[in-house]
């Protein structure tokens, strides 16, 4: 071994590590984010998105930022299903909701369908509206007066309404729904929201009105809606192009509940 070998091994190894790092960071933060959606973004915006930062729409997020974070613990009993009494009480309360969400929880308009929705989803959204973690239309006012028991009963009632025939996922579903797009940090929609799998807390999207889905994805993307813990949905929605947003919203709107 030559005299200067000792210094060179450490130096060369450091160079290799720096080169690998430079390659990985260039690919991960410049080259790969430049492909696909968001091609109109500036380089800085692409890098921020690759780093996981979701808040880049000028002005929107800070202006509309809600100081209240989502903070919901779903009671265990909710997963068991309500008693006949609770469901009956929920049905009575739901008369107030029927104007927009339909007599049987199927809106027929742009408001989301609530029939057969997972109970924990209705529970969480009502609490978020009540506490201001989610803002939108009349819902904050509608939720304001509900007691904790009212919210449980409404969740039990809507969950008890029958779904349409459940379908298995078709291979014609968009790739974003079936397999997602890892390079844009988009997990498959279907692995949380059905029909591949369901993750507790994620709403079922099948058959929801197109206008509603489209608006919510855009609200997440711009940061107007922010009642998702750790900005999970904001992160996913920001990676979607206009065409993607329309595609997945149409797919879920056209899938039977």
């Amino acid at each position, binding site marked *: 071994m030559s005299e200067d070998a000792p210094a060179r091994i450490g130096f060369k190894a450091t160079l290799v590590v720096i080169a690998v790092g430079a390659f990985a960071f260039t690919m991960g933060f410049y080259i790969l984010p430049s492909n696909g959606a968001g091609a109109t973004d500036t380089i800085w915006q692409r*890098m921020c998105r690759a780093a996981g930062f979701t808040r880049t729409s000028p002005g929107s997020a800070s202006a509309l930022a809600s100081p209240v974070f989502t903070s919901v613990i779903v009671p265990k009993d909710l997963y068991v299903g309500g008693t006949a009494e609770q469901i009956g009480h929920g049905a009575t309360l739901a008369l107030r909701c029927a104007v927009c969400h339909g007599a049987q929880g199927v809106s027929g308009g742009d408001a989301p369908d609530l029939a057969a929705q997972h109970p924990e989803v209705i529970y969480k959204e009502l609490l978020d509206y009540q506490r201001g973690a989610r803002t939108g239309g009349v819902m904050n006012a509608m939720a304001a007066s509900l007691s904790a028991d009212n919210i449980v009963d409404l969740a039990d009632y809507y969950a008890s309404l029958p779904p349409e025939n459940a379908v298995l996922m078709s291979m014609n579903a968009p790739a974003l729904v079936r397999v997602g797009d890892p390079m844009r940090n988009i997990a498959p929609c279907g692995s949380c929201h059905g029909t591949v799998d369901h993750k507790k807390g994620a709403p079922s999207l099948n058959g929801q009105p197109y206008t509603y889905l489209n608006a919510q994805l855009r609200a997440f993307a711009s940061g107007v809606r922010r009642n998702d813990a750790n900005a999970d949905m904001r992160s996913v929605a920001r990676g979607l192009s206009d065409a993607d947003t329309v595609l997945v919203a149409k797919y879920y709107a056209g899938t039977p509940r």
Partner: protein
Amino acid sequence: MSAVIKARHLILAHFWSAFVVFFAAILLGEWQMVVRSPMHAWVDLPEHYYRAVTGHGTAMAYVFPTLVAMGFGYSIVELALKQALIGLRWAWFAFGLLAVGALMAVATVAAGGASVLYTFYPPLVGSPFYYIGVVMVVVGSWIWVGLMAVNLHAWRKANPGLPVPLAMYAATAGALLWAWTAVGAALEILLQILPVALGFKDRIDAGLARVLFSWTLHAIVYFWLFPTYIAYYVIVPRAIGGRLYSDVMARLAFVLFLVFSMPIGVHHLFMDPEVGAGFKYVHSVFTGMVAIPTLLTVFTICASVEIAARLRGGHGLVGWLRALPWNNPVMLAVTFSFVMLGLGGAGGLINMSYPLDSTIHNTQWVTGHFHLIFAGAIVIMYFIIAYDLWPHLTGGALRNFTMIRLQLWLWFIGTLVMTLPWHVAGLLGMPRRMAYFDYSNPTIAPEAWTVTAAALGGAMMVASVVLFLWVLYRAQRGRRMVLTAYRFSVPVHPVLVVPAPLNGFAVWVALMVGLTIANYGVPIFHLLSLKTSVPAVFSRE
């Protein structure tokens, strides 16, 4: 020096506790496989299943390998540095801390106070005694890290300019890796979970907690792997009558583990939207870099084995394989270990590839992968470490080699029978961490055989451990033997000079810390800046 290790009581305390914990934990694992197989009715309370999973994981991930690494490390101080262990009292104190912590954690889990799985999963929060127990185990192991450094320093002062013996160099690298990798989980417990468990807070940032845990979660596997790799390099070539092909290559492999095993943990979070795609890609690339020290090791050990075969008269391109001492348990074990490392590593390529991972994420594939690597490739060499050191620790001879061979075969076949069907189940979409399956459901019925196979493989592994403990016990109680001095492998070329960076750790520790900051700094800062938190959910009976 005498042939029997001076600190033998300390080391035997580590090894026996490790193996008793191991036995208890493997029984829990086998119970889980049986109750969720079609051979058994559904587990009455799923809570019991998750309690068993938490106990199994805590014992297998934090207690068992840590005790083996510590005991092996102390042995190496005496055998490689040829000096009495400095800080024997501190070592006993660390052992006591670890033992009390482990008992406290496991008792809390057994009592139903913390069915949170060993990966903690905030916002799930259990009894503070569980986390304090785990912290005590980690603090105990950090004392060991300090002792390894102190002993190496003392040796260096007494032997200025000499190359540090390979075994000690590697064991210290493992200790340094552990010191740094445990910081992530320690931060998670101390700053996030314990304040909630103790009742000072009721909210927790689950996303940040997951990122901090990923800091520990992958490098901890390399901490488990270190004793195995050390055994490959310093025990195997000597035990089969060969020479170590290259001392420098060995050192390089160990320091590369130090550098590359840290900045890669985000590959456990590929499906977590709160971490950016850029960092997922970067961590994926660095995960690929960890293959380099493994491939260096496979090459060096295969070359060393070939040297042994040729020294025994083997010849030809592959004909030398016949000349290997296949009756020698060490030869058998290293072969099994490599086969399982190869299969497990191939499966791991799927896990570490950002786009491919989504296919098998959170399925039984992942369980299959890490059992194949840990239970298979790693633990089978822990057996060899114990067998190899046992005469020098106890003065008793291992005489029944047939039983040892049977033990290794059972472990090898058992691991494959358990883990390969799990991979199949994962590809079929079977989720992990399920307490029971409805096998009467026609879509799930085709997966039933994989769980039965896992229970069968697990039973073979239990039998193997019973044999292992029996062999160790018999040797300790059996006839005394006349011992010659313990020897580590000798390299082909005598080690006269070692390049300075490969005789110390400064460059490698700097790279390890630097890469951690580069690869974790922004994700941690980002989640801190989001300031989101969710209400804690308590897991208590």
